[in-house]
C-alpha cells in the first residue's frame, strides 16, 4: 500500500471522493497544513507541488485553496483542500518546506488575495496590471467585474 496515503489516513483527515483515478482529496484546516506537508515530505520526499489552485465561493463566504501534490514514485496526486474565510484569507506558507511552491503562492496572492503568512516575497503586480493592483482588487474573486 501507499506510504503517503497511509500517513494521511493516520492523521484522521476527512477524505472526499473523487471520480478520477489516482486523485486523493483530503480536507485540511489552515493551521494543520504545515504539519501535514512536513509529515508528507518526511514519509516520501519525492513529491512536488503541481499547482496551488484557489477557488472563490462567494455565496458560501469562503475561499478554497487546493494544494495539488504529485508523488513521483507512487504515481498519485494528493489534493489538500484548505478553506479560509473570504474576509481574512490567511494560510501559513509552505515555501520553506517545498521551494517549488514559490511561484504558485505568489500567484494565489496576486490573483485571489490569499495571504501566505511567512512568505516574504509576496507582492502585488506579479501578474495583474498595476492599475488593477493599485485599487486593491483581486481579479479571480467572483465580485471582480471585468
Amino acid at each position: 500500500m501507499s506510504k503517503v496515503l497511509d500517513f494521511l489516513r493516520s492523521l484522521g483527515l476527512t477524505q472526499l471522493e473523487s471520480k478520477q483515478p489516482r486523485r486523493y482529496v483530503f480536507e485540511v484546516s489552515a493551521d494543520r497544513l504545515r504539519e501535514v506537508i512536513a509529515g508528507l515530505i518526511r514519509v516520501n520526499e519525492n513529491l512536488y507541488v503541481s499547482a496551488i489552485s484557489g477557488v472563490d465561493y462567494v455565496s458560501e463566504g469562503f475561499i478554497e485553496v487546493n494544494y495539488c501534490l504529485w508523488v513521483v514514485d507512487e504515481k498519485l496526486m494528493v489534493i489538500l483542500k484548505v478553506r479560509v474565510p473570504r474576509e481574512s484569507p490567511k494560510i501559513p506558507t509552505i515555501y520553506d518546506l517545498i521551494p517549488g511552491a514559490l511561484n504558485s503562492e505568489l500567484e494565489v496572492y496576486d490573483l485571489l488575495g490569499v495571504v501566505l503568512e511567512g512568505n516574504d516575497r509576496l507582492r502585488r503586480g506579479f501578474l495583474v496590471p498595476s492599475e488593477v493592483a493599485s485599487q486593491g482588487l483581486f481579479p479571480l474573486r467572483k465580485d471582480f467585474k471585468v
Partner: protein
Amino acid sequence: MVSAKIIKYSPWLLHFNTGACNGCDIEVLAALTPYYDPERFGVRLAPNPRHADVMVVTGAVTKKAGERLKRLYDQMPQPKFVVAVGACAISGGIFSGSYSVLSGADKVVPVSMYVPGCPPRPEAILYGIVKLLSKLDGGRDE
C-alpha cells in the same frame, strides 16, 4: 518628411510580441526561414527598433505591453509602418474584454496593414508585407 518610397527596396522588420500565444510568433519566424525566404524582397529582421522600418505586432495588446509598444514605436525612425498580424493584434480577438487586455494594436499605434488569421500562414504574412510595399510605390506619404 522623407518620402516613404525609400524603404520599399529593403524594409527591415521589428517583430514585437505584445502578449501573443506564440502561434503568430512561430509563423512570423517560419516566414523568415528557407521555405519562404523573405530576403527575396529585401526583407530582414532588424536588430533593434532604431534600425527598423516596419514593425510587426503579434498578440493581444496587454496593458503592461501596451506602454512598451508605444515606446518602441516612438524609437523607430521616420518613415515607419505597423503591420498587425493575427486576430489578437487586430482587435484583441478571443482575449478582447479581459481585464488586462487593451484590445487591438491600433488603439496604441497607427496600423497600416492588417493580416487576419489565427494565426495567418507565413505566406499570408509575406503577402501583407509585399502589399504594404507595393502601396508605398504609389508614393503616398505617411
